[in-house]
């Protein structure tokens, strides 16, 4: 794909040489982690294609949409209500934050002990390496954690940033705050796109995002079969791609993949033997191309059957009620759905503990690997309570704290292998 998009990348003011290097590394990494798998579904070819064109064809689609007058909104968090953007005829994309890139650039403006995800998006911007960021008419930040909150202040010096205030508790006053924020966001999106949002357009948008959530829920039900019919890595990839692919196309393609998966489950076919240790991951989000931990787990004699994460069930578990009729009640339905998100930025956050234990039981896992990004305080501190909740349910947990670098892979392998040995 290199070559054919150079002109577009130059127009987006990317550092084309460094960007080509990034794509080469990404391609090799993807080959090692994904293409080496045995017995993959035919439907994964679509994901392979999307990923090979992640900075190519998809960016061209965004540019074409912009040429038609559409606006592009970039986000970093599952709290940003995509329904609002879609209802205004906009396009929403999740932004690059999963690669160790531009670190030295990022560290010019951020402290070294900042989490890898924040460093990554700042690095992508300062290194001029992310065509998604450069395609955005508005970048929507949010106040989930202190690191992101303060980093957006710096980021806004380079890109058009809009910040949504996320409540940190779930009292009536917090819901009120969040409703006001959703309305403020609606107005900002209307201003940016020049389009009015109506009850009808919101309903259509809700149906669209609910359909995408439903297909991902179906995927999660099917993958839970014994033997496991699809690798955890592949499911993570599907979840990652759901953030930047066209929602209509994505839902259709994953629907087809689920049909294939259903046949596989019926015939009792799996990608790993029946007695393979089933593990679930829980914690911080894993953005493309952060496949390190699932790869380590699945190279250690276990298979991942669930992701309790923003790039996972936190994004797909709850649907928006589609029965609301009036504009105000539709907004209420959106507000209520997003208030169910059990992010570690909330206090208290007991729903998350209940959700993790329920999910671990439903998926019949032998253990949970808790994943915290280094310097991510909310998840690191909550890991203690998660472990206690799981322990009282008789489910062992391994707590891993790491970042995007590869220097600790061997140590992590030892821990994960020992954990797998423990579950046998």
């Amino acid at each position, binding site marked *: 794909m290199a070559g054919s998009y150079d002109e577009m990348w130059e127009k987006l003011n990317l550092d084309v040489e460094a960007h080509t290097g990034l794509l080469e590394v990404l391609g090799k990494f993807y080959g090692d982690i994904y293409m080496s798998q045995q017995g993959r579904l035919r439907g994964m070819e679509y994901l392979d294609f999307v990923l090979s064109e992640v900075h190519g064809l998809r960016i061209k689609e965004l540019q074409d949409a912009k040429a038609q007058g559409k606006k592009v909104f970039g986000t970093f968090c599952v709290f940003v209500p995509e329904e609002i953007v879609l209802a205004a005829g906009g396009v929403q994309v999740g932004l690059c934050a999963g690669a160790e890139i531009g670190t030295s650039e990022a560290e010019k403006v951020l402290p070294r002990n900042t989490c890898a995800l924040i460093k990554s998006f700042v690095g992508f911007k300062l290194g001029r390496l992310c065509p998604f960021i450069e395609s955005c008419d508005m970048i929507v930040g949010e106040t989930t954690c202190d690191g992101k909150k303060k980093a957006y202040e710096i980021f806004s010096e380079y890109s058009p940033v809009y910040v949504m205030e996320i409540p940190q508790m779930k009292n009536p006053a917090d819901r009120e705050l969040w409703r006001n924020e959703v309305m403020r966001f609606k107005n900002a999106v209307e201003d940016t796109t020049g389009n009015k949002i109506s009850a009808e357009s919101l309903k259509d948008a809700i149906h669209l995002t609910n359909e995408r959530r439903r297909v991902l829920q179906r995927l999660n039900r099917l993958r839970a079969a014994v033997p496991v019919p699809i690798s955890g890595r592949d499911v993570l990839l599907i979840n990652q791609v759901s953030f930047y692919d066209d929602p209509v196309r994505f839902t259709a393609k994953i629907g087809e993949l689920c049909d294939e998966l259903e046949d596989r489950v019926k015939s009792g076919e799996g990608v790993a033997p029946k007695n393979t240790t089933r593990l679930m991951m829980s914690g911080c989000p894993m953005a493309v191309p952060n496949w390190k931990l699932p790869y380590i787990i699945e190279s250690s004699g276990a298979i991942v059957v669930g992701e309790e994460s923003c790039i996972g069930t936190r994004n797909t578990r709850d649907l928006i009620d589609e029965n609301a009729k009036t504009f105000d009640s539709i907004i209420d339905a959106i507000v209520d759905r997003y208030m169910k998100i059990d992010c570690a930025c909330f206090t208290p956050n007991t729903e998350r503990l209940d959700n993790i234990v329920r999910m671990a039981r439903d998926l019949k896992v032998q253990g949970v690997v808790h994943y915290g990004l280094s310097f991510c305080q909310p998840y690191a501190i909550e890991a203690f309570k998660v472990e206690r909740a799981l322990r009282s349910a008789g489910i062992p947990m391994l707590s891993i704290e790491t970042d995007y670098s590869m220097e*600790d892979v061997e*140590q992590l392998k*030892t*821990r994960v292998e*020992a954990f797998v*040995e423990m579950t046998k």
Partner: protein
Amino acid sequence: MKSVLNHDTVAGIDIGSRSIELVVLNPDGLLHRSKTSTAFDPVGQCRRLMDGVIGGRFIATGYGRRLFAESFRDIEVSVITEIQAYALGARFVCPEAMTVLDIGGQDTKVISLSGAGKVRKFEMNDRCAAGTGKFLEFMATALQVPLESFGDFALRSDHRIRINSMCAVFAESEATSLMAGGESPENIAMGLHMGIVQRTAAMLKRVGVSAPLVFAGGVAHNPCVVKLLEEELGQAVMVPEDPDMVGAIGAALYGLNGRVP
């Protein structure tokens, strides 16, 4: 290396960052034990260590376990992690062991065992080698004391001072400023040992310390670490006769008996 078709004879090999240990077991007991340094050629060192040793199957553990399996394809090799190897080995040297501590060249492991000897919970230090054998080695060199006598040297201190840094680089600058302030090297050595022990004790407390506690790995040879650990935990620490061998013994036992119940 001669491979004999005797399934009752099993070799365990522990390829660590500093040293490699080899033991051969059969149901009657230990037939052989030997040890060498890892140096810069772990595969070559393994080959030299195995020369003339008669073993059947091999169980490899330690950070070089995969390298070993890939390098000796002509013999039957299985791999287990150090966690499982030390859990099994500790029960061999102390059948009632409930907690295992291993401080090796580049990592520290603490393992809590169930009554049946199964790994209940474990912790390892993160990627940094602070508080491991490497740290002691680095600091012994900085104070110009041979590593083997560093513990005895520290025990000659006349009062206890705190050294806060566990990073070798920072600890060295802290030690330098203490020396400039007239502090004796013995007291500085004691401070460094106290730092390691506090860090280790915190890790042990996270998994829960039930007695008996078996202390294995190269650092268990250091009498100052053992003494301070007993003080800090308020309980006896059991150091096996050959603490470096525990991992290799555990690996061999795994080959002999399979995993613990």
